[in-house]
């Protein structure tokens, strides 16, 4: 019993351990990074990925998978770089429309019992197309208030850490500790039971998809604030990275079993992985491959801990 507990605990700590395993070598190899500015630079691009990961997490909580989050984040950045600058009201309306559309898609997926992978695949074409229509070639500018928000220097601790922690805690409280959060997770974990209790699954899924869209919007705006210009293909990688981050963070594909804090750590680990490999002098050719390898190693560790800890 005790051993099982220990293994379970190690398993729960795996996201944090993988982050340490990437972070410590970076500090050893490049001691200068262990400073306010060093950490700020290393983690600069983590915040948008953290937000995109939480969007993916909301969908995975619903037992679904979102293949359109990358194009969606790009679209948001394009809306931010064009409409939001010139006609702020239209821009806000467009973003709100996107969120509503997302929620409607969630309702549709549940109502018609169709696979989310295919629907979000179709959506990814739609988002990408809209982004290309808005911004045929890379460009645009970031609204001043977003740029200044992203450039804000927090005291003592670097801004990305502050933001990530705040986002992680906020989302954790909402999803894991509030009664609404429990209900939403239940709709992914045991839909039939939830229905028999009289909760609407359509509404639950619409809510989760809507939440995902909100995080997607935040992610796109953050990214725009950092890059100060947009591009229809800006964040396409986020689709796969966000899925990987949720899984790295201990999330399961089925059963609404997710960990907000783990997912945030997973997103930060993936952001750092690139710097880590660069500091190790891994040739750029292999950087993508090493990310795949890291994913496989962490997943293997998880299976090992699971198998010994709790044989099925």
């Amino acid at each position: 019993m005790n051993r099982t507990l220990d293994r379970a605990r190690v398993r729960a700590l795996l996201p944090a351990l993988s982050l340490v395993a990437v972070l410590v070598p970076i500090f050893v190899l490049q001691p200068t990074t262990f400073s306010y500015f060093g950490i700020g630079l290393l983690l600069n691009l983590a915040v948008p990925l953290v937000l995109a990961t939480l969007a993916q997490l909301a969908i995975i909580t619903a037992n679904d998978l979102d293949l359109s989050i990358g194009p969606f984040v790009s679209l948001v950045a394009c809306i931010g770089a064009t409409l939001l600058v010139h006609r702020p009201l239209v821009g806000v309306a467009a973003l709100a429309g996107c969120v509503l559309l997302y929620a409607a898609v969630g309702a549709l997926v549940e109502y018609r019992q169709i696979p989310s992978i295919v629907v979000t695949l179709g959506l990814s074409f739609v988002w990408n197309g809209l982004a290309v229509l808005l911004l045929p070639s890379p460009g645009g500018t970031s609204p001043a208030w977003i740029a200044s928000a992203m450039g804000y220097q927090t005291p003592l601790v670097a801004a990305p850490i502050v933001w990530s922690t705040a986002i992680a805690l906020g989302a954790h409280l909402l999803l894991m500790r509030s009664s609404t959060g429990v209900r939403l997770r239940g709709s992914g974990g045991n839909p039939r039971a939830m229905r028999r209790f009289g909760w609407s699954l359509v509404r639950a899924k619409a809510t989760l998809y809507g939440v995902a869209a909100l995080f997607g919007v935040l992610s796109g705006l953050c990214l725009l604030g950092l890059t100060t210009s947009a591009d229809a293909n800006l964040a396409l990688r986020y689709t796969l990275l966000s899925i990987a981050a949720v899984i790295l963070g201990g999330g399961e594909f089925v059963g609404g079993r997710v960990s907000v804090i783990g997912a945030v750590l997973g997103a930060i680990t993936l952001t750092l992985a690139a710097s880590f490999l660069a500091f190790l002098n891994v040739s750029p050719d292999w950087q993508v491959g090493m990310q795949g390898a890291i994913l496989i190693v962490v997943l293997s560790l998880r299976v090992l801990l699971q198998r010994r800890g709790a044989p099925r």
Partner: protein
Amino acid sequence: MNGAPSPAPSDGESASTLAARVRATPMPWLWSFVGAALVGLATAAVFGFAIAGNVVETALVFAIFMVFVGLGQMLVITAGPGNIDLSMPSAIALSGVLGVQWMKGADGLIAAGIAVALAVGVLVGIANYLLIRALRIPPIIATLSSSFIIQSVAITQSRGMPPPPPALQAFATGRLLGVPNLTWIALALSVALALLLHRTVAGRSLSALGQNARAAWLAGVKVERVRAVTYVLSATIAAFTGLLLAAVSGGAALDMGVEYMLISVAVVVIGGTQVTGGKATVAGVWGASMFLYLTNAILNAVGAGAGVRSVVYGLLIIAVVVVAGGRPAR
């Protein structure tokens, strides 16, 4: 993955009788052909028959690549809910790059190049299957991780690439009886796959696995072996496609497979293969490929940009899957 087998009464049951009718059709692939024919007729009505004929002819060359990747993806999707092969684009890139490298631009080495490309496919398929089996993770994440690694290998191998041998290029762009050679190859592969799927024990096993893995296992289907062969076949088809793409376009490029990741799933879904697995249709892949290619061509012809085309593609995919509906996947 396939827990609760009893389909709970869904809220969408009363939705539309259209869905029921579509699902009840013995030939789900028919719809994609009807769509393709309608788009073809529309092209003819707007631009005249001569231009429409030209468009259909180019479709026979370029839509063929959609058919190839679609056939591979169809096999994987038929293996049941959650099965999908995201490593196809990277397999296309790696086999194209390695195949062309091994041929060294010489006609005598074509056979060696083809062998290398197919070997790449088999290895990728085995690796995918082992990851899925050993890590017990959904195929989407397994094939995703492997695609990262394959992509890196392809990058390291892509330096100083020779052009494909002239004989291969000539074959890839050549015709037999007025029909492009590639179309013949795709036809042969399709007939072979259709026979395999519908007439052999192996094919029936795949359908059984996709409908209910546990029931298939209880019925004596060698579930794991079928699954392994499915992933190997899909990756091998992708690898072969990579080589053909390199031959047609006069050289292998690292990003030549990228667009086919989404397209491969799209043609399978639009073609009428059951998205939740268990029911494949080879003909549907053809119909859907023609439909998508012709739609693309007509949108191009009326001057719609890449953005509009993408939006139309997306809405088409969503509309088809909404009308066809699904069953509780898990």
